[in-house]
């Protein structure tokens, strides 16, 4: 059922078994798992069912460090969250992404890829992906006309991507959620504070507020924070009545290790023989495509981060703006420059020359972080201060990725790679103006076995607080190369199973 928290009596007490804070990809995935169970679920959404400027304004942030997208434009604050404008790109994390790598500080998850496999398969259904198959051989069998590049898989391999329609959670799951008898969806219910008991071992209740001036309390046996990686950290830090450092923050880790993917133009591929590279191309409706990835052995040998390269015809790619440049001073994005790039296409070097776009993990970095600003939003919550900071390892890895691909193209006599200017000088650790992310936020409540080095346990429970869980990409220890949605949903489904076992 649906309740508008603006329309109930002020200072109401709402009670249930599970309180899910946030109704984006993680929150709705979690709620779906409990439909038709005996548990009463309170699902709290800060916004309504449509985008509203006043709600987006609650996400406005102060930003320092590496230039970044305007937050209030990129995360959507209403039912369905950012799935309301995501593009649907999905792939699985590799085994190496979960491992401790001695050249990647703070790497190593408390779980392995095989622990997520069954949940990845379940997550596929939620976001309407195809079969849980990520071997290139499978997809080449489905479409025999497609030809892969003649690469040595011991060095470079075809990492497969699948594409959600993309599933808009608001449209797809609103009826299921609203019609479920045991799911109580409250809109206009922004959680502004989480209160624990005196010794900060149990959450007692949360406070919700809205711009109509109403305030309510929610009590439950279990609380799941699923507000996105940035807001998850903000909420823990701002909930500081019982512990001045904030919840789960005894070791000053909440908000640190903010990670993005670097997604930017990096090189050109010039083929020796014309090839439309259809196996590697994407357009709306594509079910699966490959990107070039670097083998685990090569990553280990070169001590580099995990990343991939995708292809765009060069006569389009060279005219496309950097994603970071499409927003105006008010945070409004303008995609028309991409249309212009398409119109400017002159078909020179058609099927010969390609722009290579990097998609690479950011190395976990404690100085890349979410903090609380002194300014408060309209509900009285401290605004977020994001300090995004990159490391030399990211740039060195990018350069090495294209060296490896370049050598492989040369070995196979397929063509040649040309690095963009900013990658040519290996001593240059600066980042060019086109540097940008993939709108992906991860790592601010990282999971781990050791409370001194992590915020949540292997089951996403905040260390030391038995009934408080974090859902979503804030738990990620490393970012891997793929977009995070598939993995964060898989992790949420795993968390749902865990919570079912504890109730």
């Amino acid at each position, binding site marked *: 059922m649906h309740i508008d928290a603006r329309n109930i009596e002020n200072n109401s007490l709402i009670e249930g078994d599970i309180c899910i804070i946030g109704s984006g990809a993680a929150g709705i995935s979690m709620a779906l798992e409990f439909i038709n169970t005996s548990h009463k679920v309170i699902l709290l959404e800060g916004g309504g069912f449509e985008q509203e400027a006043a709600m987006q304004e609650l996400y406005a942030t102060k930003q320092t460090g590496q230039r970044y997208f305007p937050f209030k434009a990129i995360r959507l604050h209403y039912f369905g969250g950012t799935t309301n404008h995501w593009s649907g790109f999905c792939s699985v994390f590799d085994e190496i992404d979960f491992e401790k790598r001695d050249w990647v500080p703070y790497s190593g998850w408390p779980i392995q890829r095989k622990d997520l496999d069954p949940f990845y398969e379940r997550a596929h259904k939620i976001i309407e992906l195809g079969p849980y198959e990520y071997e290139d051989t499978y997809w080449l069998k489905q479409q025999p006309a497609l030809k892969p590049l003649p690469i040595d898989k011991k060095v470079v391999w075809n990492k497969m991507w699948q594409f959600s329609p993309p599933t808009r959670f608001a449209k797809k799951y609103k009826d299921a959620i609203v019609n479920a008898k045991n799911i109580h969806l409250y809109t206009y219910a922004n959680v502004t504070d989480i209160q624990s008991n005196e010794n900060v071992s149990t959450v007692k209740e949360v406070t919700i507020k809205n711009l109509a001036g109403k305030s309510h309390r929610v009590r439950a046996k279990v609380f799941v924070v699923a507000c996105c990686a940035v807001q998850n950290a903000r909420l823990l830090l701002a909930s500081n009545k019982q512990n001045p450092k904030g919840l789960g923050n005894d070791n000053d880790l909440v908000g640190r290790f903010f990670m993005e993917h670097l997604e930017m133009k990096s*090189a050109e591929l*010039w*083929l*020796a023989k014309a090839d439309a590279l259809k196996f590697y191309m994407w357009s709306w409706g594509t079910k699966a495509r490959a990107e070039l990835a670097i083998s685990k052995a090569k990553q280990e040998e070169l001590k580099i981060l995990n990343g991939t390269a995708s292809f765009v015809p060069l006569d389009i790619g060279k005219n496309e703006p950097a994603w970071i440049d499409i927003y105006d001073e008010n945070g409004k994005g303008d995609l028309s420059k991409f249309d212009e790039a398409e119109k400017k296409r002159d078909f020179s070097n058609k099927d010969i020359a390609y722009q290579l776009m990097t998609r690479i993990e950011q190395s976990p970095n404690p100085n890349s972080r979410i903090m609380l600003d002194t300014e408060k939003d309209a509900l009285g919550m401290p605004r977020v201060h994001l300090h995004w900071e990159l490391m030399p390892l990211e740039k060195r890895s990018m350069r090495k990725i294209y060296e490896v691909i370049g050598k492989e193209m040369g070995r196979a*006599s397929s*063509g040649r*790679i040309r690095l963009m200017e900013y990658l040519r000088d290996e001593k240059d650790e600066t980042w060019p103006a086109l540097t940008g992310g993939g709108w992906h936020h991860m790592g601010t409540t990282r999971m781990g076995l050791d409370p001194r080095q992590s915020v949540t346990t292997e089951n996403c429970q905040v260390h030391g607080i038995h009934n408080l869980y974090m859902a979503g990409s804030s738990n990620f220890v490393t970012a891997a190369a793929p977009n995070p949605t598939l993995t964060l949903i898989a992790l949420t489904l795993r968390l749902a199973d865990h919570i079912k076992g504890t109730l």
Partner: protein
Amino acid sequence: MKRRQFIGLSAYLAAAVALPLLDGCATGDNESAVSEPVVLLHTVNAKSVIETGQAYLKQFPDENTKDKLRQLLLDKEAPLSSGAKAIHEYFNTKTVEDFNTGQTVIINGWVLSHTEARQCALFAILQS
């Protein structure tokens, strides 16, 4: 070199050599063939090859003469008297070997075999 790869390359080379070569830069004679990085010339253009060659000479100033480059490029097995096609094939084999053995350099952003980078340099000198 595997037979399949060799056949593929040979067919490609035949096509490449048959091109109205390289903005009129290549003469097709044996001397010039030594300086022609066929794959690069086929995929980009002579101007880029010259720029790359000039960048190579800046990066490796010790190799800044025609004689030095010829000395580094040519060994006893080079089929200098067998015609341009044989020379191109010889250098393409060497180029692939370079990529296989890690003998690569980055010049002007291009990830190149050291052999073809030297060819670019020689090409730049000959065209200057």
